């Protein structure tokens, strides 16, 4: 793509590095910014810089946070005896949106995969164990819920963490896997359906 101006070219190149944005969209956004008052570009760039320099991660659960400790970890209404382990930040948002969970979180930042060079040291596993070991007497962790992806890597990570937690005598559970609500049986893949049958639960007719 040829540009009439080096300034436009630089802007397009930078914007098109964002995920999901190609050169054409980047050009459209660049030209749009030029049409807007200068102040709107100022406030956009200011917001981006501020985001990058001031964003923080909760020192307890590693979720995104404005303070040193995030609003979930510092809340008094949360059940501190329960920790849900997730892979990444969007997973926290997804579980929060269910409004079914009132415990705390722990964001690992990925799953173990030696091929990609990701081991326990690259993840926040030590931090999890430290957090459990040093919890105050009133806030002792009773249960850890594993909510990792249902992939071979997710399962390996769950196994690894479970072994570490068993040594500490903590109850470990994992979210159930099966047929989605509103899903039709005939369209469910065989592996999921097979697993749903093996791990069936008793039906409560009350």
């Amino acid at each position, binding site marked *: 793509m040829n540009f009439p101006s080096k300034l436009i070219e630089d802007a397009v190149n930078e914007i098109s590095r964002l995920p999901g944005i190609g050169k054409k969209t980047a050009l459209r956004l660049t030209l749009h910014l030029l049409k807007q008052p200068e102040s709107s570009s100022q406030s956009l760039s200011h917001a981006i810089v501020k985001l990058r320099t001031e964003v923080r991660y909760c020192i307890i659960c590693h979720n995104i946070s404005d303070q040193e400790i995030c609003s979930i970890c510092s809340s008094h209404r949360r059940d501190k005896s329960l920790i849900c382990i997730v892979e990444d930040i969007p997973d926290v948002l997804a579980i929060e949106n269910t409004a079914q969970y009132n415990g705390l979180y722990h964001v690992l930042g990925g799953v*173990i*995969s*030696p*091929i990609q*060079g990701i*081991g*326990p040291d690259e993840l926040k596993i030590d931090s999890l164990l430290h957090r459990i070991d040093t919890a105050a007497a009133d806030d002792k962790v009773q249960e850890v819920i594993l909510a990792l992806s249902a992939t*071979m*890597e997710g*399962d*390996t990570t769950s*196994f*690894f963490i479970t*072994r*570490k937690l068993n040594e500490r005598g903590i109850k470990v559970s994992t979210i159930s896997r099966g047929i989605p609500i509103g899903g039709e049986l005939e369209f469910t893949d065989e*592996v999921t359906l097979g697993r749903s049958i093996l791990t069936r639960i008793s039906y409560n007719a009350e």
Partner: protein
Amino acid sequence: MHLKNINLHQFKNYHLVRAEFSNEINCFLGTNGSGKTNLLDAIHYLCFTRSAFNTVDVQNILHEKSFFTIKGDFELEEKNIEIKCIVESGKKKQMLHTGKAYDKMSEHIGLLPVVMIAPDDTQLIKDGSEGRRNFFDSIISQLDKPYLHLLVRYQHFLKQRNALLKQFSESGQIDQSLLEPYNIEIINLTKSIYIKRETFIQDFLKGLQKHYGVISGEKETVEVVYQSDGKDLDFETKFKASLSRDIILKRTNKGIHKDDFVFTIGGYPLKKFGSQGQQKSFLIALKLSQFQILKERKGILPILLLDDIFDKLDDLRIAKMIELVANHEFGQLFITDARPERSKQILSTINADKRYFNIKDGMLSPD
């Protein structure tokens, strides 16, 4: 099951050809390099989603063109189905079943069983164990879908474990607790895959011995000796004990990825002690048993592709093969031969519907 017709467009040396086939015997005749085997390969593509010879799809496109298509109409259990394969350079290969594209190639494999007997099959005896594992894995996978899932899982965990061993070897530090999830999976999968392979081989062997006797007319017993770490009741301990060796070599040294299927004749390895003739007979018996087991388990007659078979066999073996054909043990047959008179003469004794095709410079004309 049979293939009614085929359309090729820019596949290997063919620009655009179409052929209508007989339900019984089809014979492709032409000089060396005319494209006889390419026709068999096109049929292999439709049944197995890939070439029997060159696994790089784009290299099967006619020179200086950008795509090929193969289309064929099959009759399967009294239903007509159309299979189309499209390969375009730079794009993902597509297989269509009566107009609908498959998401995964593996969904198609097993639907249209096919067995090919080709000149370079002796590699199966002479080369390393990988070819033999692939040969048996491909048959078992066609009969048993969960087996394929087990293999895929096994390969995945093996790759992860090897990557881990490499890291341990480089850092000089070993974390047993990190290795454990992979060990458990590999140990369990080894046991499951071993049982499936062992059961299959026992079944397969009966057919192999019967066919070898018929083809060779000889009395020696042939065997397939299945060697596997999974056979060891103490596999778990031995697997774990080989860790230090694993770390030095940076890869896993025990497991079903080390299995071998040793072909023996009269108790000795066929590779070293079998004559050329014995090896040929063995290979044909191997392929015929593959044919038979697919036929019995799937309840349909696979298509049989015979590439230059008359060149490889002496008169006695040819006569035995033809006997099997004449007894209608096979379904649809595709044969290639560079010498038209020979094929016509051999096949003239058989009471079956026959169709001959002359192949010249990428053109195909019914005889």
